[in-house]
């Protein structure tokens, strides 16, 4: 959300080249940028909120079908991905710390590791999607769901239309999340390149902080998606 416009304007005493014309000092600029970022995160929460609302309603209405669908997801791939994302959030925090300390190479290193972890997540997600295609669990004309809900050994048959709804939500929600992951990877690649060029200093690293906020939000959304989609009925 930052705005590094060319500073061709006003007779600013040319202190920080990153200070843009509409702000009177760096503190104001930094505060504005981070408030803007937090507001953007609010819009993201509302965006995903619509889907979580739909999920909640159908999970309450069609619990058995949702539990049966959930049992068909690959819990190990899902758990691995959760771990990957949590580690990536740690590297983001370390990147911000490195930026604060003005350690350029360390900053670039952590940003690159973050991107790699993000890509790992996407690759694993890709394998999961492939498995769904093979099992005909992708909504549409080829959808075929014959599995039952295994409620502690009791086999309960479920309506395949209702299970299809579960997979519809699964694909829309994880798909939207994956799009955000892709945007995050592109964003962090850009930040890494700019960091390599020495764009950020210990006194100016707002984009790293704001990029980090975005990454954490996308991470948190997954932290909610994982139990809601994979762990509906895994207690035993």
């Amino acid at each position, binding site marked *: *959300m930052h705005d590094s416009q060319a500073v061709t304007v006003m007779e600013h005493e040319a202190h920080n080249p990153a200070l843009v014309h509409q702000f*009177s000092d760096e503190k*104001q600029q930094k505060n*504005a940028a981070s408030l803007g970022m937090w507001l953007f995160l609010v819009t993201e929460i509302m*965006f995903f909120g619509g889907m979580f*609302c739909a999920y909640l309603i159908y999970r309450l209405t069609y619990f058995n079908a949702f539990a049966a669908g959930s049992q068909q997801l690959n819990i190990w791939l899902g758990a691995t991905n959760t771990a990957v994302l949590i580690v990536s959030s740690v590297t983001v925090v370390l990147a911000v710390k490195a930026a604060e300390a003005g350690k350029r190479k360390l900053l670039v290193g952590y940003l690159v590791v973050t991107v790699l972890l993000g890509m790992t997540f996407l690759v694993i997600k890709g394998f999961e999607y492939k498995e769904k295609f093979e099992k005909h669990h992708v909504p549409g004309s080829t959808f075929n769901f014959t599995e039952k809900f295994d409620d502690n050994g009791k086999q309960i048959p479920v309506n395949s239309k209702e299970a299809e709804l579960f997979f*519809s939500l699964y694909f829309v929600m994880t798909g939207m999340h994956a799009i955000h992951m892709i945007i995050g990877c592109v964003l962090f690649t850009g930040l890494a390149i700019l960091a390599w060029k020495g764009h950020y200093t210990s006194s100016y690293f707002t984009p790293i902080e704001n990029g980090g906020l975005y990454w954490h939000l996308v991470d948190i959304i997954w932290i909610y998606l994982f139990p809601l989609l994979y762990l509906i009925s895994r207690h035993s």
Partner: protein
Amino acid sequence: MASTAIPANQAPVAPKLNYLNNGHTLKSWLLTTDHKRIAILYLISVSAFFFLGGFFAMLIRLELLTPEGDLLAADTYNKVFTMHGIVMVFFFLVPVVPAILGNFLIPLMVGAKDLAFPRINLLSWYLYVIGGILFLHCMLNGGVDTGWTFYTPYSTSASNTNVVEAGLAIFIAGFSSIFTGLNFIVTVHRMRAPGLTWDRLPLFVWSNYATSVVMILGTPVIAITMVLVIAERTLHLGIFDPRLGGDPVLFQHLFWFYSHPAVYIMILPSMGVISELVACFSRKRVFGYKFVALSSVAIAIFGFLVWAHHLFVAGISLYAAMVFSFLSFIVGVPSAVKVFNWTATLYKGSVSFATPMLYAFGFIGLFTIGGLTGLILATIGIDVHVTDTYFVVAHFHYVMVGGVLMGYLGGLHFWWPKISGRMYPEGWAKLSALFVFVGFNLTFFPQFILGYVGMPRRYWQYPPEFQVLNVLSTAGASVLAVGYLLPMIYLLWSLRYGPIAEANPWGAAGLEWQTTSPPPTFNFDETPVVTWEAYNYDEIPAPKELEAPVAR
């Protein structure tokens, strides 16, 4: 940084560099980050969509001139009212006041050089244009016929028109309004001039702030709703499709969760305009300033809690309906606070009747009718009787046209000297305000009666006994059209032939009047320091004759 207050009524220096003559190339406009130039870009594009939407409105009214479906085929009529609604709601009413007047005025009013994120501001205009072009493309390829509400399952499985493209256009245009709102909130929080505390902010800023909150909380929900509709059409998901276990009422909940608060996105900025106008042309501080300011915030909050009153006949539980009915009455309270306080501001003020004030009077009267009929509709029993009739159509046109558009036109005339550096011709402006007021009432008042006696909306034929009222309505629409075309002509005329405007032709309070007309690119030569309350009209000399600097 040395900062001094700039004296009011500073005479404009003729060859001074201002935002309009600072660069004349197309590039200097299309790549500008100046909030004032972006406001002009919005002014041009939003006006174009207004006349497009107006064209569809005229087609509707011409078709309804006679009881038979003779001008348009039934399917065409469906498309015409759908596209009238989509263009007017998403491409006109939502951006009109915030993106044009708000963009231009908010940095000026808070004494800043620009909005907090000028490039995001430009991006938001481009998103608006891309969304608009996509919708135009959709129109040229046969349009869309679902009604602007896109109700499922009609929009997902029955309609064979370009629903996907229309949905995508709305999705993209939605991000334009999210970015505008985000920019306003950050600007108001972080960029106010020294001394400009929250309780010294102009009420226009307050109302746009409240609007922005609704924009950033509501718009993402319509975005995801459109994504789900598109996904349902293209990928055959069943989230809203009853045949696949989905629930069409869920769509209505999600849709109205945005689209009811969107009504406040439209009306709140216009209410802010009216506060400015009433104070200036009564030469008085707005009565109960804090209540008017906080009523905007209250409307923004309560506006999110009333959406299900659109669903009284959709099969929601009676208890839910009662709660939403009650909350809909509650939202009438802050709206009434505004109307009462404007009226109280007029009391013992030295009221003058310049064109902006005529529009303000129009707003107060018409919004009151629109608001009160809203309470009638919030009553469950009556709502069941008049749901989907012309009573509803008349109600929301009183709020949207009688309210939003009146406020916008009043504001546009009021700030025209600041925007263009020229005065508009007062005589023509008064005439067109009269046309708008008479034409509006003639168009929409008969529709209250039509609806109450049972004429349903969205039909292209009707029983012959409804014809008299429909003819009146169509006649009114023609008068209204003249009222809208006139300002376009004389405002363009004034750009060249209007008398040069002073910095503060109305003797108005507010920082925007303390800089030159038109303002320089960075708004103020020196950052202003505010040491006075808002609307300190007792300290500002009134212009000798408010109508004096005006062309006849």
